[in-house]
């Protein structure tokens, strides 16, 4: 570390002992955080596992995977899972592609560039609760959007209470999340080594070709991260739905967290635990798959 000359065995031992001591000391730095995480997340998660496998908390009889089977047959859970999956399926790709486009545009020499960046990021700061009023004004059955539609000769749609309802939430989700993802893409784009891009240009590669052959491979790990983040945030979209439509929204807006909240109310620990474990497992699988894809893609650049 400090010197590379061969230390005598005695000296080495002394230094090792010193280093071990230091390492022990730095463990103390980890202590508060580790204790907190252990108490508030890890230990109770053990209980969650226990609850998911027993018959009921009083008898405590082992029930195997019965609870999971029961959950998977639950109509409300299936509806919520389906809705959340549909929402994520629509919203996540948009939340990756649109910010990437904006980021590329903002990396050019544009007039008012920093203004655009500020504006596109600003929704990140706004609490959803502050904005739902305007969303109601826009998408209410007697709201602005319907007025525009009828003025143009179309038929009004009850946006919050029809199969179109997810659209309003997707728009709100994109409005809120585009800024964050855009920053991530912008900083990743800024890190692409300039000489590689220049070399490609000298070789006569067009804008499209440099994008797909050079920028995109360099961005692959950022695309992965943004995708994971967007999936997590799409699981949080209950927030938007709840603030707009409350505990019992239109069927198409009944999200997993609605199911969780209602289950919390009935204190059905088995159901809650199974749902939490199932969703955790799904999350880990999604992340794992994305990582696998990223590694495959990432290999190309390193060569």
């Amino acid at each position: 570390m400090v010197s590379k000359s061969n230390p005598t065995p005695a000296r080495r031992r002394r230094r090792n002992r010193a280093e071990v001591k230091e390492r022990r000391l730095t463990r103390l730095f980890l202590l508060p955080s580790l204790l907190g995480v252990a108490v508030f997340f890890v230990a109770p998660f053990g209980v969650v596992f226990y609850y998911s496998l027993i018959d009921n908390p009083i008898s405590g009889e082992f029930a195997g995977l019965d609870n999971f089977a029961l959950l998977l047959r639950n109509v409300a859970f299936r509806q919520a899972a389906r809705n959340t999956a549909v929402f994520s399926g629509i919203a996540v790709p948009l939340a990756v592609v649109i910010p990437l486009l904006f980021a590329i545009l903002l990396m050019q020499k544009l007039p008012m560039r920093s203004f655009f960046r500020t504006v596109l990021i600003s929704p990140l700061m706004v609490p959803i609760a502050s904005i739902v009023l305007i969303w109601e004004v826009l998408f209410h059955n007697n709201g602005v959007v319907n007025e525009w539609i009828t003025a143009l000769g179309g038929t009004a749609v009850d946006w919050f209470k029809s199969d179109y309802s997810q659209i309003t939430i997707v728009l709100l989700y994109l409005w809120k999340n585009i800024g964050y993802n855009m920053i991530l893409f912008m900083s990743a784009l800024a890190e692409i080594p300039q000489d590689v891009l220049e070399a490609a240009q000298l070789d006569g590669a067009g804008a499209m070709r440099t994008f797909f052959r050079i920028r995109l491979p360099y961005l692959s790990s950022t695309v992965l991260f943004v995708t994971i983040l967007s999936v997590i945030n799409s699981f949080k979209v209950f927030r938007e739905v709840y603030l707009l439509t409350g505990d019992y929204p239109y069927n198409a807006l009944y999200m997993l967290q609605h199911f969780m909240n209602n289950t919390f109310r009935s204190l059905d620990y088995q159901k809650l635990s199974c749902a939490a474990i199932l969703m955790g497992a799904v999350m880990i699988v999604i992340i794992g798959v994305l990582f696998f894809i990223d590694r495959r893609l990432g290999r190309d650049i390193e060569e």
Partner: protein
Amino acid sequence: MNVSRPAAYTPRHAEKGARGTMRARAVGLRAAQIAAAVFLLGISLVFLAPIVLTITNSFMSQSEIASNYGKIFTSVTTAGTYVSSKVNLKLIPDLVSFTQYSTVLLRSPEYLFKFWNSVILVVPIVVFQTLVALVASYGFARFETKFRSAVFFAYIILMLMPYQVTLVPNFLVSDFLGLLDTRWAIILPGVFSPFAVFILTKFMRRIPSAMIEAAKLDGAGEWQIFTKICAPMSKSIVASVAILVYIDYWNMVEQPLVLLRGDAQSLHPLSVFLSQINAGDAGLAFAVATIYMVIPLLLFLYCEDYLVEGVSYSGGLKG
């Protein structure tokens, strides 16, 4: 890839008329830039509209809200107010009125209570999550043993879990410790949430080890290295992290709904309560909504660069 190339190298066919095509290309590029700017201007207006409309609408009187928005907020309590059958989305109020604000600030203490609830939940989380994380990040970054890498990986997984997963253990432990339906049920898990640890550790790992070694040679102990070198160097990233944690919790909905039940609903922050304001008080709701979002927005105008730095650091899981 062959990057270095003699500077004088130009393909022969490129020499002829290179200037002409370059000029044409420059003009084309300029046009494309302007088109992009116009496009972004349109997008920007759309992005700003909800914020600006909320703010301007908060300066409308209740009767103007009722006459503009007609049947949207139908349960109008003020009898005899004109309710139009049409919607009239207005950017500028007919008459700028501060009545909503005076009602909120002077005559309706319940909104101020909810605002206080938000503050008293969020401030301790921001302060202590950042502090705990700053200390822990030094521990993670100083020695990267196998054990610590494994724990850090577990933190990342935990960070990536949605509320549907983490709220169940939070609920169980709060119940066990008797914290359920108290503010602690939200504050304590918030303090130990791994997000800040994740970002700060990534920053600390980039502090050159030569600096630490030099301090060690001067006889500094671990605590001194942390307080005299690493913590001061992290000032700006700590600010970034604090902002990110703040906006996350200022917007919280899930935790209060699950962890503050029954009578404890009076402890709900404004981020939940705003949606429960009666439709008849829509005008008031606009004012409350504005007050609630103006604080983070002002913070943003001052600290945009910190925010951007923080977000950039959150990118990528590998460190």
